[in-house]
């Protein structure tokens, strides 16, 4: 596993909101199932003293940190305040910060990510489904019932497409070490390069599925940065130029970042690229056969 395990105490920002409350319930159901610590504290300014599913809520992250040993934070606060939450977590010294929130202005994200870096924290997201290490920890909103333990890492810019691929892997008997949704925004904290570096140092991870999409060239940068065996899939071959395809970051701009040129560059780097999600399991098995 990377970023966290059973022993990681998780803090949830926006704990008393609809999303926060709902997912504290699911994260702690998973923690009970695997024998982990799960969510140990929540934070919502002005709601200190309340409880959500038995989890104590504090007004500030610093207050919560005085009472609980916390290794990661998951953020569910609205877009206007989410960047502030990232900085509050980083300021309190939380090493892993998962930001689920979508629609944060990119200037706010740039500042928050730069600040978190300076504080030595890693930001996952924003606009992401979080992290799930099967049998260890769930930090985010991924549907745990689709996952299974194993040694294939998954890194993705998407949410539901990740679940689709994980479901295909699990059905084919291929378990996962850790699945990381890095987020669909143009500026994100941890990119493919960073997560692949973590996987390289993770003894459990033997191969990685990289799920990318149109926009930017982070997929190619990632593939170039590692010697781990990779299978890739790129969504958006049929995306027209200059149109945002749902994700703020999924846009072909200035003739760059289109799916076909991404796929060509990945193949040049020796990375097998699936043309359909359903081809991924067979290609992963192919990696294991060839090594």
């Amino acid at each position, binding site marked *: 596993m990377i970023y966290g395990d059973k022993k990681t105490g998780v803090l949830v920002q926006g704990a008393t909101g609809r999303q926060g409350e709902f997912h504290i319930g699911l994260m702690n159901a998973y923690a009970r199932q695997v024998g982990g610590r799960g969510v140990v504290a929540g934070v919502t300014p002005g709601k200190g003293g309340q409880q959500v599913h038995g989890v104590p809520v504090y007004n500030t992250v610093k207050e919560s940190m005085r009472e609980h040993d916390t290794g990661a934070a998951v953020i569910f606060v609205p877009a206007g305040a989410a960047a502030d939450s990232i900085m509050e977590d980083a300021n309190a010294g939380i090493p892993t910060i998962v930001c689920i929130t979508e629609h944060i202005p990119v200037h706010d994200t*740039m500042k928050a990510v730069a600040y978190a870096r300076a504080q030595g924290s890693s930001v996952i997201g924003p606009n992401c489904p979080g992290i799930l290490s099967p049998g260890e920890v769930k930090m985010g909103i991924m549907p745990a019932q689709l996952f299974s333990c194993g040694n294939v890492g998954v890194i993705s810019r998407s*949410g539901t497409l990740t679940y689709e691929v994980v479901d295909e892997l699990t059905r084919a008997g291929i378990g996962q070490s850790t699945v990381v949704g890095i987020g669909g925004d143009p500026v994100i904290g941890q990119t493919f390069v960073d997560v692949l570096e973590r996987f390289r140092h993770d003894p459990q991870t033997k191969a990685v599925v990289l799920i990318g999409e149109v926009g930017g060239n982070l997929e190619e940068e990632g593939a170039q940065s590692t010697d781990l065996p990779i299978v890739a899939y790129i969504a*958006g071959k*049929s*995306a027209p130029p200059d149109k945002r395809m749902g994700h703020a970051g999924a846009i072909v701009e200035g003739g760059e970042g289109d799916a076909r040129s991404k796929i060509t560059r990945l193949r040049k780097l020796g990375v097998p690229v699936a043309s359909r999600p359903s081809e991924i399991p067979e290609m992963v098995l192919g990696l294991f056969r060839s090594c």
Partner: protein
Amino acid sequence: MKLREHEAKKVLQDAGIAIPAGFLINAPEELPAHLPALGDRIVLKAQVDVGGRGKAGGILMADPATAVATAREMFSKEIKGLPVRQVLAEQRLDVKHEYYLSITVDRSSRQPLVLFADAGGVDIETTAREHPEAIRKDIINPLLRDIPPFMLRDLIGSAPKEIGPVINRLYHAFCDRDAILAEINPLVTTPQGVYAADAKFIVDDNALGRQGVTVNRDLSEREREAEKRGFSYVELGGNIGVIGNGAGLTMATLDLIEFYGGRAANFLDVGGGAESERVMHAVRLVAGVPPVKVIVVNLLGGITKCDEVARGIISAGISQKVIVRLAGTNEAAGRQLLAEKGYEMLDTMDLVVKKAVEVAAT
């Protein structure tokens, strides 16, 4: 959202960057009143939301004697299919040299990227190909309020020193106005000083609210209607309607349609936790696109309730065929509801897409 040239120039002017004397006119008759302030050499620029307007006849030169006639000519034509409703009448500058300046959001470094080139007036992609040595770039830590002087010196190289403060002012405008692109091309030196002869400015769609923008002009009417309902929607022109949850899964569905030889009509991401009413609106919206013959619904997720989705599809009551792939809670109940009404529900996205392509081809 892209700003029009006159809006972008106003932003630059507010940031303290000099722009040519100019007036926005809505009809040729408005021009004579402004002629005294425009001098002997005038340029008329159509304010239309398309790129490459110069080559399409959207920029015309004039003098005080011909200006009104030229303006009349411009108002009477279409630029790349768009009518000209506004024209920017500007004084032509006495140009000594043209430079290129832009600031963008760099995904790799997660920070603003400044590009400055000695060669202006041509697009930066061409300069990058033909004269890469003419381009200088630097990444700015977004926590800095100002670009440090050493970085400005590094960027401008042998170009006149007066350009340094212009770069810093553009950086301020870039940050304060939530831009994802701020471009001055060309940035020109004249005997009177440094001017922004043209300007391009794109505002972050996620910051339109706090920038006081209420209507995103970059979206079509149907796209705007979809946005109001919380959907992401893009029109694509084929005859297979698509509804998915999550941008990646929906894009993958479109790609699969192409893989099996069909053509998607649209991209529609309904978002998470879709309830019956949202699904109903999504189905009706897609069914309302004229060439749509069949609709693929591909919803996957732990929290999506299949019976809710099924009810949404049924209550939409559309005439086209709907083919469904659903995975989530209450799957059996959803399946039964759809089966009772004669809808088709298949197990994988490959199967639904294949089926839809077959139906669309008949």
